[in-house]
């Protein structure tokens, strides 16, 4: 029997595979395809305090091995989530993580305070890539001081483990990760999507109404992996690796580079059973390599000097 469990600080996961925010709906969308209990956990769609309209379509454009999205964080808001969705999700014995959004620092804090009083949530993932309306649309993830400040505030109100989700759209992601660590984050997850665009050459118009969107999928994996390796080498808190994971092998690359767990995003759209297939592939890898605990693989990258 192989032990696939991992610990993200005080959060224990039965296996290292989580479904990523925004790609797994509110969880229930996947029940026709799988038993959610077999997941390490899942992160629900980003929640602001109030419902959000999101951007006008088209919101998606496919590029080579990638997907650019400009959903605009459409969502039902934290109250409807607790009333309508959370009671259904409590039936599952798997880690439910809520992706927390805010237009300003106070909104992040109020979302967390509201959720604190509701049972059945394992942790919060702080989506610091939300544009801050008071700071001209600048998102906290882009600046070490803004990251520090929002993480510090949310940490002070949160009764649950806090994972800070980092944006790759920065020149030094390690610096941001260190700020999150210093502010008390229990873990970091990376990466969110890469700012991107695509153009229709016939109309000379951007393919997304929003002009810009976030690139995800296999196209981003090598860059995301590099960032995860850099961050994992420099910080002491656990790292969750995200970006272009479609297979057990992709997940293993992240674990070997130091990620304690991974999140699977775009792959869920293409194959809704993807997360479970990845868990099975990890298990098979351990079997064929004579590894009894998945934790023994983490951070084993062998760099020949």
């Amino acid at each position, binding site marked *: 029997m192989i032990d696939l469990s991992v610990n993200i600080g005080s959060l224990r996961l039965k296996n290292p595979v989580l479904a990523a925010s925004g790609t*797994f709906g509110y969880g229930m969308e996947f029940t026709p395809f799988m038993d959610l209990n077999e997941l390490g956990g899942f992160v629900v769609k980003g929640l602001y305090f109030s419902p959000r309209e999101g951007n006008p*379509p088209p919101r*998606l454009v496919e590029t080579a*091995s990638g997907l650019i999205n400009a959903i605009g964080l459409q969502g039902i808001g934290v109250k409807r989530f607790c009333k309508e969705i959370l009671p259904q999700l409590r039936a599952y014995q798997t880690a439910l993580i809520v992706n927390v959004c805010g237009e300003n620092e106070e909104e992040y804090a109020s979302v967390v305070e509201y959720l604190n009083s509701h049972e059945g949530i394992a942790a919060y993932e702080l989506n610091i890539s939300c544009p801050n309306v008071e700071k001209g649309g600048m998102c906290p993830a882009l600046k070490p001081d803004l990251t520090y400040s929002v993480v510090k505030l949310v940490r002070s109100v949160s009764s649950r483990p806090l994972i800070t989700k980092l944006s790759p759209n920065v020149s030094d992601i390690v610096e941001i990760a260190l700020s999150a660590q210093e502010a008390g984050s229990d873990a970091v997850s990376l990466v969110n999507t890469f700012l991107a665009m695509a153009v229709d050459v016939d109309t000379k118009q951007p393919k997304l109404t929003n002009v810009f969107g976030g690139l995800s999928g296999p196209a981003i994996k090598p860059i995301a992996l590099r960032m995860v390796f850099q961050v994992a080498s420099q910080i002491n808190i656990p790292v969750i690796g995200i970006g272009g994971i479609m297979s057990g092998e992709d997940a293993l690359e992240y674990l070997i580079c130091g990620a304690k767990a991974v999140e699977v995003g775009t792959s869920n*759209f293409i194959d809704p059973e993807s997360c479970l297939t990845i868990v099975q592939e990890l298990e098979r890898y351990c079997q064929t390599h004579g590894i009894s605990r998945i934790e023994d693989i983490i951070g084993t990258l062998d760099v020949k000097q």
Partner: protein
Amino acid sequence: MKKDSRAQITRKESWREYFLLSLESPAIAQNAQPGQFLMVRASVDTHPLLRRPFSIFSAEGKSVEIFFQKVGLGTRLLSEKQEGDTIDIIGPLGRGFTVKKEIRGKHSALIGGGRGIAPLYFLSQKLKAHGGTARVFYGGKSVEDLPVRERFEKSGTTLSCTTEDGSFGTRGQITEAFEAELNNGFTVSRIYACGPELMLKKIAEIAAALNVPAELSLESVMGCGFGACWGCVKRIRKGQEPGWHKICEEGPVLKAEDIIWELGNND
């Protein structure tokens, strides 16, 4: 809704840029309703990455059929599949056309522009099974855009064809042909349509003027097809509230009066 990663192609028909594939997939076939769709994986590679949505052309016994036009990479790869190959499909998805008992003895108009004919064959069969009569308006640029007309003819459905270049049937736009028939005394108690958005908008106007209920099948770029990505939204009314709603869940078939036709909706 089920994933069938090994649906076998048991029959393939092709015309210049149109293709019809019969797929053996009992679990999906049994539950399919007219107007619902499948998400089809055109390649196991990462390019193209996403599945592609296709209406269910027919569902009978163990088989479902899809009918599609080759417009880009995904449909090209699908068009190259051969009988005996297997493909990965998810379905049946979305909300289809409503066919209620009251349809018995009533006339319906089914209007399909180009590849928009795809969901209407299945619907015409179901309407007949419920004792209704269906007249199908099938239009395209030219005769080559009307490849599946024989399927309707063989099943004994009344068919009116229109081509923009006059190469077959009445010359002109499909909506003009439909209006002309209405002016000639053709009466309908229900309208169902699928096709380009401008055509659908025109049909919504005609239906409103006639005060006849209409159901329209919309298209949108879909990331997943089952409600997880929020990519497929259109401006629609749900209850009283207009908002960006997911076409893969609330649709693809919607009541004409629930669709808000505005900029950003016409992609």
